[in-house]
């Protein structure tokens, strides 16, 4: 009896394993999707919503997952979630290009009528067909697009509180999606991929931050303020990725999953340290050059003061006051030494030790940056004081 039961149960269990492959599922979904789109439920007769409500067990696929600004996307969460794991780039092109509305929405900005179509339909449908690894990368691309949109609006003087909030919400949504994907990888034990993705994306956002920092130079106060808030948004997003990256690192080290993963995080740490040390060296050189340039001018504390027609103006090109060179140099030497020790361990395939040395080197670079930043702040305070004196009394010129 037991044998009969086992055989029959086994047969049933085997039969249950017959399933559609992902590709087959995608093909069916897309065909049905196209059919559904070409045969929408009619809104003409009677109450449109009422007709939906009659549809008891099966509801319209044209339901609205994101009701934003009164624009109904042409596809619902059904489309998005059902096909989430599928890759079908050519179909994405057909879907997007085939829809006049979505195509027209492509160039829209926050506040434009078609913007929600672009963000909630065009971009979302593209995300549906991406792999688990490609999707977080795409979400960061979307995040950076939001940043570019914000910059465009600032340049066109079209930024408002409402739009700023909407952009912030969208950016938050993108980074949440990335975090979700990375957390999913971590949970599934794919720590190396989780680390690699969060590391790469963190670096990408850091570059965006740096780019905005450079753009801030010489801007009017109002524009500088807006751009600074955009930079803050990126920084917050980057910090979320930093946490995800550090989490993956920690788990790799704690679990000692495999040499390959530990080697990956050690090499990534090495790259970060090298980059930081090089930037510090470059900054020191820049400041020295600035100090040299301004020495000959009628300058005070490293900036140029000039007078024309009774009006005094102060031009600050780079903070050029010297800092505690000796301390900085000592710290830099320490950082380079730790870096070399890390390299030695890496070459000896002692990846745990290498990671440890590189982490220490990174801590040292953080200390150097704090020291240099505090110098910059002191110097800026000094400039502000001088300007204030000029404006309000001591020299009584402006």
């Amino acid at each position, binding site marked *: *009896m037991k*044998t*009969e*039961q*086992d*055989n*029959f149960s*086994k*047969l*049933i269990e*085997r*039969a*249950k*394993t*017959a*399933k*559609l492959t992902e590709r*087959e*599922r995608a*093909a*069916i*979904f897309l*065909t*049905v999707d196209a*059919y*559904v789109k070409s*045969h929408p*439920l*009619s809104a003409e007769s009677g109450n449109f*919503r009422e*007709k*939906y*409500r*009659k*549809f*008891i*067990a*099966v*509801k*319209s*696929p*044209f*339901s*609205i*997952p994101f*009701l934003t600004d009164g624009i109904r996307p042409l596809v*619902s*969460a*059904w489309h998005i*979630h*059902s096909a989430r794991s599928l890759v079908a780039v050519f179909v994405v092109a057909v879907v997007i290009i085939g829809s006049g509305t979505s195509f027209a929405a492509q160039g829209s900005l926050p506040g434009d009528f078609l913007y929600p179509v672009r963000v909630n339909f065009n971009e979302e449908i593209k995300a549906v067909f991406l792999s688990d690894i490609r999707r977080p990368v795409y979400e960061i691309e979307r995040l950076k697009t939001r940043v570019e949109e914000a910059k465009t609006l600032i340049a066109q003087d079209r930024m408002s509180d409402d739009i700023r909030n909407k952009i912030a919400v969208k950016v938050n949504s993108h980074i949440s999606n990335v975090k979700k994907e990375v957390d999913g990888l971590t949970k599934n034990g794919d720590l190396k991929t989780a680390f690699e993705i969060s590391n790469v994306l963190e670096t990408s956002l850091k570059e965006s931050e740096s780019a905005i920092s450079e753009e801030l130079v010489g801007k009017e106060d109002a524009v500088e303020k807006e751009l600074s808030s955009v930079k803050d948004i990126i920084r917050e997003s980057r910090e979320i990725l930093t946490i995800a990256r550090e989490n993956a690192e920690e788990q790799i080290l704690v679990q000692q999953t495999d040499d390959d993963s530990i080697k990956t995080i050690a090499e990534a740490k090495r790259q970060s340290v090298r980059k930081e040390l090089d930037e510090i060296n470059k900054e020191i050189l820049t400041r020295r050059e600035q100090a040299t340039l301004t020495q000959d001018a009628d300058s005070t504390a490293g900036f140029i003061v000039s007078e024309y027609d009774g009006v005094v103006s102060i031009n600050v090109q780079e903070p050029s006051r010297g800092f505690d060179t000796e301390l900085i140099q000592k710290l830099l030497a320490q950082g380079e030494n730790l870096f070399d020790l890390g390299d030695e361990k890496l070459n000896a395939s002692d990846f745990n030790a290498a990671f440890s040395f590189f982490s220490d080197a990174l801590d040292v670079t953080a200390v150097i940056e704090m020291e240099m930043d505090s110098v910059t702040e002191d110097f800026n305070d000094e400039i502000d004081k001088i300007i204030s004196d000029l404006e309000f009394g001591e020299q009584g010129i402006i």
Partner: protein
Amino acid sequence: MDKEFGRQFQDIYKQSADAIFRYCLLRLSDRELARDLAQETFMKVWQYAQERGTIDNLKAFLFTTAKNLIIDQYRKKKTTSLEDMLERGFDIGVETYQGLIDRLDGEQALAVLNSIPEKYRDAIYMQYVEGLSVKEIASITAETENNISVRIHRGLQKMRSILGERDAASAVPEDEFRKQSKSDD
């Protein structure tokens, strides 16, 4: 409310795509054909919903639609699963079912189930593989619930006796199973 509609339909699709495909595969033993019919099933259901607007039990409705499409297909081309398998070189031989079942993949297991006589097959398949209730199966097959219960019971007995007797080194050929089934009519 609209969000919920979308979610429900999404859930139904996710839950049912494999089941409908599997049922088509059981009946047709042709993967490509099964895929086409599964696709057509969902489209037909949407078409019905568009025209009538009300579907009480969607899962049962999906199976009913698939079944009707399969019948249409049968009119064009009749398939016998085990015969096809044998033609393709799948040799059952004299080995026990134990050994046989261990070697089956999903499609082959469905082919074995398809060898069960029709009046038992759907009922057993729908209950044991797809987890449908007697009520749902009755609705799909247009039979009474009592009939379905009896068929499941008898069909199961026969399946078990065949599978058990094979392992007791007493082979019961497929046609013997069919003979036993006919005697129950």
